[in-house]
């Protein structure tokens, strides 16, 4: 755009082609034109920036409503998905927990049954009884009686001269001593029983009881109570050949 010719004094035509009156203060109107065009530039830039900064404001109402619907629906979908995922997560967590609990319970059961079945070496408070049988007159029946007395007194693990005694243990007389579970044992017999030491000692010492029977057979007994005794002998369990768990049996 070239500068206006200074001598221009022609009748002007505006965009609407209206005739215009003559001008008086040209310098002032020049400034006015500059001012108006400056306003235009200013407004133009402001509007451009406005459109850049806020794209939503240029949308029509229908578009805005549709956009809002879409956003709302998307939000609903996402919240539903979140709920499902949270439920799934809780389920996984709880199943993990219950599996851990079940594992813990199974481990504890295995320990208890291992102790009862004699497959685990155990330790705890208890007593030791040494039976000296110089003449070889202590009979298997007497030793078996001793085992029953210990069980009655609450002994939880019993060992006789390296043989772990359990529910299926048996005694038989043999030439030099006794046979326990097929293993010949010779005197002196060393009993180790884990349980309440006081109770076990009292139970064995009662008149006419286990120790008295051994003494009647001609043996000598020495009973000691200990804070900690160890039963290290274990048994190998045979797989049951006939018995299987009943289908309706309660678990455990």
């Amino acid at each position, binding site marked *: *755009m070239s*500068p206006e010719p200074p001598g221009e004094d022609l009748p002007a035509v505006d*965009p609407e082609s209206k005739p215009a009156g003559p*001008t008086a203060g040209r310098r002032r109107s020049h400034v006015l034109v500059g001012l108006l065009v400056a306003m235009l530039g*200013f407004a*133009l830039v*402001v509007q451009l920036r406005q459109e850049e900064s806020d794209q939503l404001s240029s949308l029509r109402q229908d578009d805005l409503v549709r956009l809002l619907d879409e956003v709302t629906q998307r939000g609903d979908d996402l919240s539903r998905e979140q709920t499902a995922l949270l439920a799934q997560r809780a389920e996984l967590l709880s199943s993990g927990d219950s599996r851990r609990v079940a594992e813990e319970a199974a481990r504890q059961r295995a320990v208890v049954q291992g102790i009862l079945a004699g497959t685990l070496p155990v330790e705890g408070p208890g007593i030791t009884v040494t039976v000296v049988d110089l003449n070889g007159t202590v009979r298997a029946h007497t030793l078996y009686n001793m085992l029953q007395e210990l069980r009655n007194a609450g002994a939880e693990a019993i060992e006789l001269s390296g043989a772990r005694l359990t529910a299926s243990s048996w005694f038989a007389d043999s030439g030099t001593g006794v046979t326990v579970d097929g293993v010949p044992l010779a005197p002196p017999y060393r009993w180790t029983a884990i349980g309440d030491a006081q109770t076990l000692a009292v139970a064995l010492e009662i008149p006419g009881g286990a120790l008295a029977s051994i003494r009647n057979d001609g043996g000598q007994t020495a009973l000691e109570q200990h804070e900690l005794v160890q039963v290290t002998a274990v048994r190998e369990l045979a797989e049951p050949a006939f018995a299987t768990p009943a289908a309706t049996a309660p678990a455990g």
Partner: protein
Amino acid sequence: MIAVIGLLIGVVAGILVQPTVPVQLQPYLPIAVIAALDALFGGLRAHLDGVFDDKVFAVSFLSNILVAGLIVFLGDQLGVGPELTTAVVVVLGIRIFSNAASIRRHLFKA
């Protein structure tokens, strides 16, 4: 010349100030800008025709903006704001095109 300087000053001022448009004015500002552009192109064409006049330009500039704004305002009140805005933009756009064609003929003789 002063118009070009004014345009530059306005653009620079707009960039520097970075004002936020009031919400009530937001529908009218683009229309006002289009109307002013129409007046600007008309003034440029008049200048090339050798019939430019400052006063006429100022009056047409302001009245263009005012009428366009009034039409949009009226349309808003009648509930046909967007449609009337489109109509104003179309009319002003046609005028800008015809003015631009005149300017082109002046500048390129084609």
